[in-house]
């Protein structure tokens, strides 16, 4: 009996090994706990949906291997190391947020494993990197587009900024917004700061209200941004609030209630409320609604989905699934259709050029109201 059991074990182990050779592993430095879990969870669900729709390449099964980074930079590097060294993944999909992505990207670069960042918009993420790509636009464009929209379309001349000084994303985007807004002729009347993890923004908001801006730009992550909106409305702020891509969340109205009415944010060019969708976006929305009924998708889910598609397409084109071949093919991506538009990379730039959307909370609903072309 015992021998029988042992034999069974040997067979199972052998089967496991041979099974391993027939799969292509894509590691995910996922963000499902901590302050960025709001966006990270949606990204992961987007990737899992893409994996379900496109489960095989080159006759092998594609397996997603997610490891949580707890919204932390150090944990991101650890997760990337583990995925590369012990899971032997062929490619990585990066975490949510710029700071953690830079930490994981450093590891991927050294190991020579390609990494596709999802929503990391800080320009430094791909700078000087051979193996790091991203599926989204970058902050110099986002900051410029936001400043343009606020100044030219809405006609606001006085802006205030409230920045998270501990986030690479927040600091970068705030600087691009301020530079462009003043270049257009606008005035920054108040420039306040806070740190990730803070929960009390009353002092900063009271000061900003005192300066009387037309609009407050908050390049915040959703966890803090939602609280800023709440406390702003508690203090009776009369100005408009505008956020960046990180403020995109399907539950914003449930969480914010009346406090978020009229809130604006820039977004990767996808939202279920957008009037005109490309074919990929339509297919994604339909598949999402079937997979997660009763739960709305958003741009983060779309970015997770797109990141998977870009790697998947590169594997198909390469005809091989080793990290180097995938990297080389990724660099040749030209007009790959993705949910958020056509994606191209080149040896000079690993940052795609993409449209930016403006989303407003109108009558208690997220509405995609405007598209800005680069």
């Amino acid at each position: 009996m015992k021998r029988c059991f042992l034999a069974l074990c040997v067979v199972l182990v052998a089967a496991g090994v041979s099974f391993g050779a027939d799969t292509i592993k894509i590691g995910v430095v996922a963000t499902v706990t901590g302050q960025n879990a709001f966006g990270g969870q949606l990204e992961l669900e987007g990737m899992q949906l893409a994996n379900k729709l496109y489960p095989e390449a080159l006759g092998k099964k594609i397996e997603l291997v997610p490891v949580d980074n707890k919204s932390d930079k150090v944990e991101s590097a650890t997760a990337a190391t583990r995925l590369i060294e012990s899971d032997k993944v062929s490619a990585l999909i990066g975490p949510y947020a710029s700071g953690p992505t830079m930490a994981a990207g450093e590891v991927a670069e050294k190991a020579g494993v390609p990494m596709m960042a999802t929503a990391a918009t800080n320009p430094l993420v791909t700078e000087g990197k051979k193996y790091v790509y991203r599926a989204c636009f970058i902050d110099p464009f986002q900051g410029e587009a936001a400043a343009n929209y606020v100044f030219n379309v809405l006609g606001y001349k006085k802006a205030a900024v409230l920045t998270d000084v501990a986030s690479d994303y927040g600091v970068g985007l705030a600087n691009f917004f301020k530079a462009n807004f003043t270049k257009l002729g606008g005035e920054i009347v108040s420039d306040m700061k806070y740190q990730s993890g803070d929960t009390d923004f009353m002092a900063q908001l009271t000061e900003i209200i005192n300066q009387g801006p037309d609009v407050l730009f908050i390049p915040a992550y959703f966890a803090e941004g939602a609280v800023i909106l709440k406390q702003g409305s508690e203090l009776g702020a009369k100005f408009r609030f505008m956020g960046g891509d990180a403020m995109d969340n399907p539950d914003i109205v449930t969480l914010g209630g009346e406090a978020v009415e009229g809130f604006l944010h820039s977004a990767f060019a996808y939202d279920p409320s957008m009037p005109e969708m490309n074919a990929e976006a339509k297919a994604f929305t339909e598949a999402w609604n079937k997979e997660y009924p009763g739960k709305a998708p958003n741009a983060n889910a779309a970015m997770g989905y797109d990141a998977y598609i870009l790697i998947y397409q590169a594997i198909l084109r390469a005809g091989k699934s080793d990290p180097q071949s995938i990297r080389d093919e990724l660099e040749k991506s030209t007009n790959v259709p993705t949910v958020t538009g056509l994606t191209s990379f080149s040896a000079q730039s690993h940052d795609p050029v993409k449209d930016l959307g403006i989303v407003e909370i109108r009558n208690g609903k997220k509405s995609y109201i405007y598209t800005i072309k680069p």
Partner: protein
Amino acid sequence: MFVQHFINALGLGALYGLIAIGYTMVYGILRLINFAHGDIFMLGAYFVFFATIQYKLPWGLGVAIAIVGATACGLLVDRIAYRPLRGAPRISALISAIGVSFFLENLAVVIFTGMPRAVVQPPWLMKPVILGEVRLIPLGLMVPVIAFVLVSGLLWVVYKTKPGLAMRSISHDIETTRLLGVSVDKIIALTFALGSALAALAGIMWALRYPRVEPFMGVFPGFKAFIAAVFGGIGSIPGAMVGGVILGFVEIMSVAFFPKLSGYKDAFAFVLLIVILLIKPTGLMGERMEEKI
């Protein structure tokens, strides 16, 4: 404008103070820094979240459930992780406390998932009252008032009741108190129960004030409150409250007076802490040094 800042600071400081009391009580009696205190605070917030938002119970009942639940957790932590180590060197209990803290945080991640959840505040708590330039929300007023009432109640327990007498006696000499026929373990359990109940209340008010709950929500407030407790003189209950309020004021007022340096408000708070401790090493209202060691 100043009045608005003043009210904001009082609300924040009172919350720090409430959490700080839990640290100070346990330290005063056992000379143990109960690192799990911030996590009991987190559990209190989660209990009220589940009772009122998931299961739609009335707020009063939700608060009661949270207090009972958090108190039970506090007692359990004492029984399992601290009581067996009572005769051991102090450092062992300290490490045990850090272990409990990590355990509770990760247990919360497993049970509640790591996703932050939003707390829906009852609308009557948030309806602003406008007095000239100042906007008050009922919640903002309630926090300092409740904190004051709770601290008064606690002082009464500690200084006017028999268990309170036993607590103070234990804090001076645990062995002699035991020889005098006091059930030391029961009194220590009572201390943990009171501290945990206060942490739960602070957790509830925190979750209402900054409307979200997540497994690591206790880490930062716990850290700040511990500093407030040291600052006020660890072991002293009024000291913890005063320390908390001062910390709240420094954080808010540094932003109010130096808006350009608003990213450094924690640095301001800690510099002040260092200066006070250099001048008065036992904290603002701390007892004499001999009793500390």
